[in-house]
């Protein structure tokens, strides 16, 4: 027994090290002068300390503008996906309309198309509609790519909410829509919030579409923006600043998501299901 426990801890420690070491290394590199982080063999503990990389980020790129753009795009796309996705999932799971099965299969097929194949047609279209460098050029594709899977996940979850609850709501005098937002949606919050967070992260991190459709400096999103950090000369690649930038936009996001998840799930699932 003791040995088992010991081995378990050893295993967990190795896994934790494997996952966390790169992050540690990032933090280390971001606070050291470039000369130190380039040393070979690499020094794995802090030897010098500087804020210059962080200051450099703000001097080099309009970081706050990028954050603003990413926030607008990600929040809008997530909101639309959750709104449309949850209503569609509700219809499939509880209303059982004619053709709901073909509809779900159709959605699955949509999900198979690789997003990369859309880039050029979309570019043409957005160019024609004068939507390049417009938030919509990212919000629209992000939403349509995410909705199919979102509907699948939420429909599966909603199906597990007893149908009697929906029926009781209807008999109690609620319209379909009232039954959705008063009964099914609150009970589906754990799934809805998970889907929302995953969507938000996916939009926040998306690179290729953002790079292609947002060509003006002031419309760039954060992922593209950081990749654009450049040194004084073309051969110089300022790793320290890039890393500092990545940390600056990632760490707050992770913290916010952790807090949000905790709040949402603990607050709203108290007393849900198990009736």
């Amino acid at each position, binding site marked *: 027994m003791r040995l088992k426990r010991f081995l378990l801890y050893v295993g967990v420690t190795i896994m934790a090290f494997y996952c966390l070491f790169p992050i540690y290394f990032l933090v280390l590199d971001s606070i050291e002068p470039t000369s130190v982080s380039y040393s070979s063999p690499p020094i794995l503990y802090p030897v010098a300390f500087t804020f210059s990389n962080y200051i450099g980020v703000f001097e080099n790129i309009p970081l706050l503008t990028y954050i603003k753009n990413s926030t607008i795009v990600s929040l809008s796309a997530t909101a639309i996906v959750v709104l449309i996705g949850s209503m569609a999932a509700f219809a499939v799971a509880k209303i059982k309309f004619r053709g709901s099965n073909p509809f779900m299969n159709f959605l699955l097929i949509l999900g198979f198309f690789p997003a990369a194949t859309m880039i050029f047609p979309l570019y043409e279209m957005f160019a024609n509609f004068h939507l390049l460098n417009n938030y919509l050029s990212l919000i629209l594709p992000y939403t349509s790519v995410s909705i199919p899977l979102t509907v699948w996940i939420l429909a599966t979850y909603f199906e597990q909410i007893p149908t*009697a609850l929906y029926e*009781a709501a209807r008999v*109690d*005098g*609620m319209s379909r829509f009232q039954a959705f937002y008063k009964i099914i949606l609150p*009970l589906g919050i754990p799934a809805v919030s998970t889907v929302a967070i995953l969507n938000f992260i996916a939009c926040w991190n998306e690179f290729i579409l953002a790079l292609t459709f947002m060509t003006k400096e002031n419309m760039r999103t954060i992922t593209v923006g950081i990749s654009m950090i450049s040194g004084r000369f073309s051969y110089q690649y300022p790793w320290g600043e890039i890393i500092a930038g990545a940390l600056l936009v990632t760490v707050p996001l992770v913290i916010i998501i952790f807090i949000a998840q905790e709040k949402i799930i603990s607050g709203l699932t108290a*007393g*849900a299901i198990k009736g």
Partner: protein
Amino acid sequence: MHRLEFKKVYKRFGEKVIAVNNANFFVDEGEFVTLLGPSGCGKTTTLRLIAGLDRTSEGEILINDKIINALSPSERDIAMVFQSYALYPHMNVFENIAIPLQVRKMSKSDVKTRVGSIAQMLGISTLLDRKPRELSGGQRQRVAIGRALVREPNLFLLDEPLANLDAILRHRMRGELKALFHSVDGTTIYVTHDQEEALAMSDKIVVMNYGVIQQIGAPEEIYKRPVNKFVAVFVGNPQINIIEAKNAEDMSKLFSSSKVNALEKLTHDGKVEIGIRPENIVLGKGNIFGKVTLIEPMGANLLVSVETALNSEKIKVKLFISNTVKISEGDDVNFSIKESELLFFLNEKRVDVEG
């Protein structure tokens, strides 16, 4: 309160399943009507048709002489208690009871008084802040009933509301429910597979089997004058004794010759099934002889199984005697049958026999 009528209603699921087959019945104002039958007989489907949760395949459902087929559940103004209670898990007891009023835009203060008085009536005033998962089965059931009673709907529908309670609570709630729905003068339709519940609570019973209504009548009528063997066997605990008489000789062992003659005229092959309720067999006098094979004490009474010979074949009947009688398994006994209470079945249907 309000009336309900079913006119030639059919409900089909797919090609083969007919869950409700030509249902015709009428529920009068303030009546407590029970849909009774074994599981799968179509009673719950019938209830769902009334609520609008399922749509009829054919026929008309009327409330107060108005056809409601096309109305959605929320437009029918019907209150329903589900077998699973279907309490909203994320709302507390107050909100659960209040929600039918809130969606009807009743003012906050009115909702509060109304929910308060219903909670008091059901004895759950102290539970209003709790969530459903913090309640016992009996308490949940009261909340479900409260949610139905809180408004004044056209109809109350109850789908096996006692099925999930333990035996003691079930018996207590039976009486309470009957009194409750009578006191609000509600037209109530109650679904159960428990014939005792149906007999104890109903003004009228609709017995169903395989989607077909077998009989509609007052509990006493259903019990004493079942239209066919299915109803006779399904209603009554312990079950009615069914004895098959193959010819006049068999019959004459059981009852008087005038009845035998009358029966012979009705049958073609001399075969008839005879139904005898256990309470209509009198032990200790009479000229039918047999042996006690089993004694089941049922409190005040003993249920005694007696084996007797009907010519060449052995048959068994069950009968009641008081628990003060000294009797043991293996005893030789004699008994007689109350002839006036006998039921006769030809091809599963009950026939009236003179004489």
